[in-house]
């Protein structure tokens, strides 16, 4: 037995499923295997913010109104990030991974789901301080063009610098954080040399394929928005994109143990979620 609200809820679920189909068919962005609770929350947020009567009406807007899809894409991708977010993770990178990749003449790092780039530049700073930046090729990818553009610019609001500086220090930074940016009005512009070996590119983890021969893949707080099946597929994609012995770094609450590919990896740091692809 359902009450009136519960019936409405079922209708909304049908409408959301149809909206996601429409987005996929028209634009190629596939949110059908995302966490349903997350997608619903974001769509209902946009529904009330744009004063539409129903999700069906939103579907009409998505199909017929230029630009509305960009607003929705922004809603559906979470772009909350910071430099040296979870400082102890970066400390673990310094202590546990850097000594190994220091022995490589050349190496490739892939930041999958890089958002507006803060964590990519954090990695670049660490590589510089360890004296191995010149041997690195960093690929930073996201499916959202708007955030990718922001990532390329490397310009952030000055309000955040205090927190980033604190994070940097906690993460084992050896210099003064102000060495890496120039303040201008209410923005900071990151040091140009940090960008030299970073390639920003459009890549969708849901629909695009292997991104070859990486020594390290960093993908933090992205998998939490996917359902279990999609998580499994993406971890498999990572496994196939890594060299044997390559590292996979996930977000602090993203556990590889639940993944079908877990047996292909060795746990390097359980707390900071750093894994290594087995050699055979």
């Amino acid at each position: 037995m359902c009450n009136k609200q519960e019936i409405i809820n079922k209708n909304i679920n049908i409408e959301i499923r149809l909206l996601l189909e429409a987005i996929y068919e028209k634009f190629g962005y596939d949110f059908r295997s995302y966490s349903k609770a997350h997608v619903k929350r974001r769509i209902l947020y946009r529904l009330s913010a744009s004063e539409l009567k129903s999700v069906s009406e939103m579907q009409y807007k998505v199909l017929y109104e230029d630009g509305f899809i960009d607003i929705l894409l922004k809603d559906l991708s979470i772009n909350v990030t910071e430099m040296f977010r979870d400082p102890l993770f970066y400390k673990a990178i310094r202590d546990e991974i850097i000594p190994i990749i220091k022995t490589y003449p050349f190496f490739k790092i892939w930041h999958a789901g890089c958002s507006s780039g803060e964590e990519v530049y954090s990695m670049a700073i660490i590589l510089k301080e360890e004296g191995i930046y010149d041997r690195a090729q960093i690929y930073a990818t996201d499916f959202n063009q708007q955030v990718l553009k922001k990532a390329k610019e490397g310009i952030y609001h000055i309000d955040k610098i205090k927190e980033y500086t604190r994070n940097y220090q906690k993460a084992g930074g050896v210099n003064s954080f102000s060495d890496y940016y120039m303040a201008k009005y209410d923005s900071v512009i990151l040091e140009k040399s940090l960008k030299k070996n970073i390639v920003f590119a459009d890549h969708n983890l849901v629909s695009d394929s292997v991104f070859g021969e990486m020594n390290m893949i960093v993908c933090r707080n992205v998998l939490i928005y996917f359902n279990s099946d999609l998580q499994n597929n993406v971890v498999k994609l990572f496994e196939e994109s890594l060299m044997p012995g390559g590292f996979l770094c996930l977000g602090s609450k993203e556990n590889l143990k639940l993944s079908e590919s877990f047996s292909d990896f060795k746990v390097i740091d359980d707390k900071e979620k750093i894994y290594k692809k087995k050699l055979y």
Partner: protein
Amino acid sequence: MQYKAIVIGSSAGGLNALKIILSVLPEKFNIPIIIVQHVSPQSDNYIIEYLNKLCKIKVKEADEKEKIKRGTIYFAPPNFHLLIEEDKTLSLSVESKVNFARPSIDVLFESAVFAYGSALIGIILTGANNDGALGLKKIKEYEGLTIVQDPKTAEVDVMPLSAIEATKVDHIFSLQKIGKFLSSL
């Protein structure tokens, strides 16, 4: 009415309040309880270890994509929103703070309503902001059961008062009474 889940939101003063309610629940208590307690982003969630020692049922931090089990108490991890999927698994999110909070009570309550409909109990305890008021209202709209800690007994009464103002709640109880009520289910 057979209730299938209980969600609780608490903030300032929450640890003591939760202790009083949860420690009286019997071993055979078989409704899952999902809790958002506002904590600092850097918290090590010691509250879980502490309550797990005191309670007769299992207390744990919510794991990403974990299936919700009967007779278990789940806490949102610090600095993550906790959502309930309609297939009764748990999801985490780092989206922006809601009501200045991450985890936010409203985020948990709203997703819980979609998952459990009228078979849900929502409880708001002590706290110094108005997070949870909208979520509790939503639970009431879906004909779930709504309970608020008696503001007169709350360490900080802002949160219970906001919840009572936002909706016509079913019960306003002391902490002891909430514990007794849940135990009788």
